[in-house]
């Protein structure tokens, strides 16, 4: 029952009936990854699809110069490892690391193919992939067109959309973010990020509480994005 409880609470399978979720429960594995624990590395054999029950996972690649380039930060209900799903003898082309204690459900490719036989699950997967495609396209455009301030503003607004909680002050981005985390996301130096965040605070667009950001004025952030 624990496996079913784990999987059935994933939005991906919300439309399935109990019998179908029971089938999934049989197929699913689960594991808690501790903070900074690697889930898989670039080059590892890729035969598993992962689904995040709770926690956060960072996907990154290492450049030729040895720099870690963050590609995405995934959260509850996200899937990953699907990028090599249709390849035989596939290997992962990136690294996945838990950013905090993260509970992950998983199943191998063969079992996942069985799950895809359900049209509702397949449709949900297509929707998830569509969301990912939009997300990556937006990131490419953001980095290509915007200056650092615009990129940081865009990231803060996006994170507010995903993790934001309303408060009397403004929208709290309910995850801990260091300046280095933001620097990795927007492809800028940590020093530059610190300077820009200082500017945004002075302008009254944001404030901070520990490692959490609070959006005070979304219009000011949107204005920074539009100013190319």
């Amino acid at each position, binding site marked *: 029952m624990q496996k079913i409880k784990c999987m059935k609470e994933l939005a991906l399978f919300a439309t399935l009936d109990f019998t179908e979720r029971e089938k999934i429960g049989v197929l699913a594995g689960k594991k808690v990854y501790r903070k900074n624990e690697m889930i898989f590395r670039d080059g590892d054999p890729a035969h598993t699809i992962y689904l995040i029950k709770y926690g956060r996972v960072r996907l990154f690649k290492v450049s030729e110069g040895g720099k870690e380039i963050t*590609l995405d930060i995934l959260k509850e209900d996200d899937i990953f490892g699907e990028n090599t799903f249709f390849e035989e003898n596939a290997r992962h082309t990136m690294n996945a690391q838990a950013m905090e204690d993260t509970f992950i459900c998983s199943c191998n490719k063969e079992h996942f193919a069985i799950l*895809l036989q359900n049209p509702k699950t397949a449709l949900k997967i297509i929707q998830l992939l569509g969301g990912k495609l939009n997300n990556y396209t937006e990131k490419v455009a953001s980095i290509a067109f915007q200056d650092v301030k615009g990129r940081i503003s865009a990231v803060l607004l996006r994170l507010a959309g995903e993790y934001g909680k309303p408060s009397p002050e403004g929208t709290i981005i309910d995850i801990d973010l260091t300046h280095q985390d933001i620097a990795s996301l927007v492809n800028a130096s940590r020093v530059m990020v610190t300077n820009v965040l200082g500017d945004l605070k002075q302008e009254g667009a944001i404030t901070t509480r520990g490692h959490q950001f609070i959006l005070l004025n979304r219009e000011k952030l949107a204005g920074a994005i539009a100013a190319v």
Partner: protein
Amino acid sequence: MPAPSQPCNGAGGMNQNKLHCPKHSRDKEEVDAQIKKMVSRVNLMRDLLFEIKAGTPLGKTVKMLLNLFLCEGEDGTSDLTSISYHKLANLIGISHTELQESLEHLQQQGIILYKPISK
């Protein structure tokens, strides 16, 4: 139990039991094809994101082309016919060979379509 080689609907077979066949097998193939296509596109955009972030010749080329195409002409198209390989490579900050390889890669991936114009 019917043998696996029997047709799904029992046609031509003596056994009345039906084999389990997925409903709408053509639809299932279409769904699989759609998922495969989406995965391929997600991989492509993620790879491009890495190239741009890592500052590779390919990433620099993509970034420059995006910015060039942002400057639309009056009819909504960008005329890049006056830009030579050499000039574009200089603009991007990469070698002529790196530019050519990048453009060929982008063309193979279906992102751009280009052809050299001989003057």
